């Protein structure tokens, strides 16, 4: 089974007066795992439904393996969809749920009838082959013991596996998954995430995975496509996305869980003035542009208060989080920052301590208030 590549060209969709999707273009390579990431209501699920053919786009095209899909019915698109609510057939057993796509595709309506069906030539072999494939799939997902149960007698995780099984059993060329982990509890979510990664590695099916959870996106994806307000903002590998967010929305959304932001006036001579110290960062600073300096808590360091070039700050709160701790500090003029330091180091700090905050300029970003970040070529160490 060969995976297919997927081309999404300039997809637009309106619901009434609202632009849900605007000019989305995305190329997904055969076998690639791409996540659509964004806050709820950003249009990512609508995009997935358009790819599946469950929703009609107002403009643009979807192509898979070079074939235009716009006029193709959902069932003929050779893709499988895993729904957030699992969407199992409530009156069918686990076995029949998994078998349903095969039965509907491979048996004629006469052959599906209980008694008459068995008398038709070829039907028995086909039924046997369906059973064989259902058994393989249920074995892969460890569902063998549950085959006779109804969905209502299953736990959330088991239902999830049945939904995966129903999607996998006919070996589709493309997998679409709409927040399939959202209804699971935390431990099961991590576990199932691993299962999905393992299945993708084995089957190498092109997969589009929708989520609002950045950790899930980072853990699973070859590339992540970040969608905000119906626009595709950035498509990048998880590590690049973390390092080089294209705009402030993306940076904020990918902050885990905090992002330091500081509104800065027009930069002077390639440097920013913060609390009397000059900071030189990698990003190109268009002259005369106001904007926001942003950096992650892990790229802030706490030093002595008279450390040269450090911003004087005062500790207001310390949050311990296992091996690390987040230290919340106030600077002059009401600015607030968070620094992530080792828990060991945080033990010696108290609320009200006066310290100096330094920023790893190499890792900080400047987002002009009127557009995307301009990545600079020069090094911050200049």
């Amino acid at each position, binding site marked *: 089974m060969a995976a297919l590549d997927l081309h999404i060209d300039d997809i637009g969709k309106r619901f009434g007066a609202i632009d849900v999707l605007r000019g989305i273009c995305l190329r997904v390579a055969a076998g690639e795992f791409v996540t659509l990431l964004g806050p709820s209501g950003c249009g990512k699920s609508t995009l997935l439904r358009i790819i*599946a053919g469950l929703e009609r786009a107002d403009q643009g095209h979807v192509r898979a393996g070079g074939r235009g899909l716009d006029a193709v019915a959902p069932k003929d698109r050779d893709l*499988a969809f895993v729904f957030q609510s699992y969407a199992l057939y409530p009156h069918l057993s686990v076995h029949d749920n998994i078998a349903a796509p095969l039965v509907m*595709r491979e048996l004629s309506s006469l052959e599906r009838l209980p008694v008459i069906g068995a008398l038709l030539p070829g039907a028995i072999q086909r039924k046997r082959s369906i059973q064989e494939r259902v058994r393989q799939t249920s074995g892969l997902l460890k569902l063998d013991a549950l085959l006779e149960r109804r969905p209502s007698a299953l736990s959330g995780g088991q239902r999830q596996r049945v939904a995966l099984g129903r999607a996998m059993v006919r070996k589709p060329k493309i997998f679409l998954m709409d927040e399939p982990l959202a209804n699971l509890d935390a431990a099961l979510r991590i576990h199932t995430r691993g299962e999905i990664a393992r299945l993708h590695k084995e089957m190498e099916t092109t997969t589009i995975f929708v989520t609002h959870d950045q950790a899930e996106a980072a853990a699973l994806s070859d590339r992540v496509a970040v969608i905000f307000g119906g626009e595709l903002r950035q498509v990048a590998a998880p590590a690049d996305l973390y390092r080089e967010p294209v705009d402030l929305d993306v940076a904020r959304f990918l902050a885990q869980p905090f992002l330091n932001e500081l509104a800065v006036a027009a930069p002077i001579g390639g440097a920013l003035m913060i609390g009397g110290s000059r900071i030189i960062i990698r990003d190109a600073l268009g002259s005369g542009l106001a904007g926001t300096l942003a950096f992650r808590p892990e790229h802030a360091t706490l030093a002595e208060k008279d450390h040269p070039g450090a911003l004087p700050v005062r500790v207001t709160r310390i949050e311990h989080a296992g091996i690390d701790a987040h230290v919340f500090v106030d600077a002059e003029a009401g600015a607030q920052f968070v620094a992530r330091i080792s828990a060991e180091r945080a033990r010696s700090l108290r609320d009200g301590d006066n310290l100096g905050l330094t920023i790893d300029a190499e890792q900080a970003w400047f987002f002009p208030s009127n557009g995307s970040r301009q990545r600079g070529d020069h090094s911050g160490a200049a």
Partner: protein
Amino acid sequence: MILGQSSSSRIVSHAVLVTGAIIMVFPFLWMILASLTPQSEIFDGSLLPTPTLHGAIDNYGTALSAIPLLRFMANGFVVCLAILVLQIAIAIPCGYALAKLSFPGRPILLVGVLLGLLVPVQIPTIPIYIALAKSGLLDSYAALVLPWIISVFAIFLFRQFFVTFPDEVLDAARLDGFSELSIAWRIMLPAAWPAVVSFSIFSIVAHWNDLYWPMVVITNPDMMTASLGIAYFRQAGEGAGNVGALMAGGVLVTAPLVSFFLLMQKHFIRGLVLGRH
């Protein structure tokens, strides 16, 4: 015992319910006893007739021989079954379309269905009669069945049942290769099973007991249904004035429905109470 209810208030409420039950059951009890009592002894002044074996044989013998009661019941059975099957065959896809498919004019159609619920059958009797007469269908099963096969009540009931069904399951079915009709039959029908059972009971009871419509379109005794047959029995032939035999006919005609209800009771009540599931 239910908390907060004193035993005296329980006794009062039970007494009221038992009295009500006696009032409702009494005519049936009288019918059964009278059907077992010789004609001459039914009105002997006592509250309840006293059954005898001889009376029972006599009455049931007359009921079965004086008129073709079994033929009437068979007619009723065929008609009720045909009506029910066609009603469901039409109402399930209609209810599905009204609940889950979007097409122009859907709201107006739904209003039409609701308006249809308000029109009693007596209103269109004459046009339907004329239509059946012109097509030469009077005195046939078709005349008894066809006017009933579109049940707006069933369409509305199923539509209400389907509206709450999760859309994602339908999307999953469309991707799995189901056509819209196979979604209606293979997914919606099983999901609506309690509603189907409830509706079946309403439909069968209504049409088995219906006297009005058979009276309008049937004059040939061979085509009569059970209710019409009993009415015919009362007025014509040997049965006229024979109360015991008439009651025996009544028992025979009521028995299938009562036993059907007892069999289906569990589903019936579940369907009424849950309304969904």
